[in-house]
């Protein structure tokens, strides 16, 4: 990067070098960003294309609006359905929330990768010693992330319009998605100032995305507190109502939020030291506690933060949705037609069960992400050379690997167990049947575990056989989740649905427990774990 050295030394401007860093970031992201952009930009048009085949007649479209559009257990995942009688309205409803979720994560990871992660590795220090303004690195990261967001939005609009949908709606959908990316770019910029490690910065940013999704889920599945959706950037994207009498003024909300939150990041940046977070590091103990004498004790120190965070976060979600569930019948409305539809679906209690089953399934999938994260810690320890000092003591490889995998297996079990119990409690308090409710939801939560463990097992399999590609586990987990969540609604063939372990999990409460899939999912998980560990014992470390 000789070009950086050529930057004009006469200027002490705080943004000098931004352009060079932007180009460096784009060069480093030359694979990952195009992947994000292409996938996110093409998915809505592909989905809109299927609408006419799945719902060819007006009668079917009217029924779609009446049934699914009014179903709260669908609204909790996808958001409010404003107009399901057109392909555009259908795509905006079906994918608007997920597009916003995905672009938010893209923005968080991109900003962290070029700010806090660079400081962690010390590479930023090398660059900072060149002629570089104080705000250059942050600004470059913001430019790259915002640029990618806007590009995704415009491409999304172009492909939707190219697929024959109204240009105005396509533009509204594209901008609504892009602006969510801008808001989370700003949020990630603040997180990068507050956090001391890139892991924490990504955690704060991803948690913000999760909270935004949670807020709109709550708002969209209640009848009396719809305003909660308006607290969420993801909610704003949906409330823009693409293809359903667009409300352009809503797009002002993300723009204002971006500038306000982004401004905070720029205010915080000069008030902290390079490489340090906002909270000063405290000294630790001079000697280790007597309990710190095993790989497991060490692993606990590494996993306890994320484990507690996930458990508390999911328990809160469980409490919220368990409580909302009892009222989901109200949302269907009072019209005779709505009551007919409700009766055809099996009455209010079936509706409540379906809602709970959907939520428990989503919680199981979320817990999977923690399982993958915990299992991937092994690879992180290996690549950062921290495993060598341990394995050069009397700790054997299996014992070391087990110390981490306990958190991947039992940690996920603890999360779904606590979530199930809390959900049962909050639901039971509303329905005055605490015992029954806790029992049903606990079982519903626990049957998620075999599918979760299959994904964790596959992660261990990768770690054992293809260590360099262990992080592909994120991609596989994402695929399993997307197939289970979106597969059924886009009428994916059964052979595709079968790929995802979550497609085989009984939908409880509401269905009967079938042991067969649970048994073979568990067997699959154990086989993958055993094979992965046995390969790890025989391979080279490093």
């Amino acid at each position: 990067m000789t070009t950086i050295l050529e930057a004009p030394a006469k200027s002490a401007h705080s943004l000098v070098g931004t352009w060079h860093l932007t180009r460096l970031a784009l060069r480093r992201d030359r694979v990952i960003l195009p992947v994000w952009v292409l996938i996110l930009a093409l998915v809505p048009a592909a989905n809109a294309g299927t609408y006419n085949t799945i719902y060819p007649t007006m009668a079917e479209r009217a029924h779609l609006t009446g049934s699914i559009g009014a179903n709260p257990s669908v609204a909790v995942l996808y958001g409010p359905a404003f107009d399901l009688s057109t392909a555009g309205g259908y795509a905006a409803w079906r994918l608007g929330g997920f597009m916003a979720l995905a672009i938010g994560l893209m923005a968080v990871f991109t900003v962290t990768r070029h700010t806090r992660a660079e400081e962690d590795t010390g590479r930023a220090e090398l660059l900072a010693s060149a002629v570089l303004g104080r705000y250059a690195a942050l600004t470059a990261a913001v430019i790259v992330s915002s640029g990618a967001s806007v590009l995704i939005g415009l491409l999304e609009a172009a492909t939707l319009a190219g697929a024959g949908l109204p240009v105005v709606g396509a533009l509204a959908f594209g901008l609504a998605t892009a602006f969510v990316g801008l808001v989370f770019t700003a949020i990630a910029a603040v997180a990068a100032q507050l956090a001391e490690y890139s892991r924490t910065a990504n955690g704060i940013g991803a948690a913000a995305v999760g909270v935004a999704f949670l807020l709109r889920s709550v708002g969209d599945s209640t009848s009396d507190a719809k305003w909660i959706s308006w607290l969420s950037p993801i909610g704003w994207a949906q409330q823009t109502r693409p293809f359903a009498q667009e409300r352009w003024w809503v797009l002002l909300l993300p723009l204002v939020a971006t500038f306000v939150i982004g401004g905070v990041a720029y205010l915080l940046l000069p008030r902290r030291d390079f490489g340090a977070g906002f909270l000063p590091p405290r000294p630790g103990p001079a000697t280790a506690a007597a309990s710190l004498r095993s790989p497991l004790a060490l692993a606990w120190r590494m996993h306890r933060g994320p484990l507690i965070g996930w458990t508390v976060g999911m328990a809160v979600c469980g409490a919220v949705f368990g409580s909302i569930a009892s009222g989901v019948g109200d949302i269907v409305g009072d019209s005779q037609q709505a009551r007919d539809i409700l009766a055809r679906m099996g009455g209010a209690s079936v509706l409540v069960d379906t809602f709970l089953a959907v939520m428990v399934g989503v919680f199981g999938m979320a817990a999977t992400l923690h399982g993958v994260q915990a299992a991937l810690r092994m690879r992180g320890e290996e690549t950062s050379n921290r495993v060598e000092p341990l394995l050069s003591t009397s700790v054997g490889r299996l014992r070391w690997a087990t110390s981490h995998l306990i958190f991947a297996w039992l940690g996920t079990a603890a999360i779904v167990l606590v979530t199930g119990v809390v959900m049962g409690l909050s639901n039971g308090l509303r329905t005055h049947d605490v015992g029954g409710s806790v029992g049903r939801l606990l079982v519903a939560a626990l049957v998620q575990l075999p599918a979760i463990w299959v994904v964790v097992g596959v992660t261990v399999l990768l770690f054992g056989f293809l260590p360099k590609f262990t992080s592909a586990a994120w991609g596989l987990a994402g695929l399993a989740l997307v197939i289970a969540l979106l597969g059924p609604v886009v009428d994916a063939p059964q052979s595709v649905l079968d790929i995802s372990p979550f497609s085989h999990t009984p939908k409880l409460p509401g269905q009967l427990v079938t042991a067969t899939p649970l048994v073979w999912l568990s067997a699959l998980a154990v086989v993958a774990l055993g094979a992965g560990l046995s390969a790890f014992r025989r391979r080279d470390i490093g």
Partner: protein
Amino acid sequence: MDNAIAITGLHKSFGRTKALDGLDLQVRTGEVHGFLGPNGAGKSTTVRVLLGLLHADSGDVRLLGGDPWKDAASLHHRLAYVPGDVSLWPNLSGGEVIDLLGRLRGGLDQGRRKELIERFDLDPRKKGRTYSKGNRQKVAIVAALASNVDLLILDEPTSGLDPLMEATFQDTIQEEREQGRTVLLSSHILAEVEALCDRVSIIRDGRTVETGTLTEMRHLTRTSIIAELAGPPNGLADSDRVHDLKVDGNKVRFDVETTALDAVLRQLSQVGVRSLTSQPPTLEELFLRHYTAEPVAK
């Protein structure tokens, strides 16, 4: 058991890259053995094979009488390792890391731990990430030296230490030797090697090119002689063990293989020597020759 480490014909490849190509290494029990070679020669790979982290492709490796791959966990009770690039857990203090590693090795000498922390001027309360490179290195050194083990495997342990700490390190290794510990010391610091090592092995391109005491190695190299003689030199040019001979009247200047020194000096004294300076090979020359020249034929 004579040899703490006995390696013969060790091969290890990563894909198409040959890291070790028939390496031999013998470390006698109770000695401090220098392990030298240019960057990328295969020193760290050898150490990692010894630690059972890498599986050898072929060759015989014995560590403390056992197989480093199969018996890793039991052998590791008896050794301690200091890597050249120490990476610590960000949320653990240095003191916690020292205790943890010591306990996992099967025990820590508390008195020794305290003494070493003082001598190395280490603050054990800082968190892993806030240590400088030299201080991270000290954490690993203290953890290794405070353990009661037979064998120390040190892979460039002093990279990043200041000269004062370097001296402290040399003192402590001397003490370890006096207590009968075996040390395998991979190092680039020649003064450190000269001060500490009983024997050294030099490797290059994954093969051992030289092994022995430093005195023995000096014998294999050349001594520079500048002499003023009573008359013209006789027949020096004929000897194939005299190199770079320059004659200027009665003055000669040449390099002679150290094993032929005696014969050549006798030849000079037959003519009569007025003045003579000889310069033994410096360590730098010794190593540079091995690092850059083609491997010596065996």
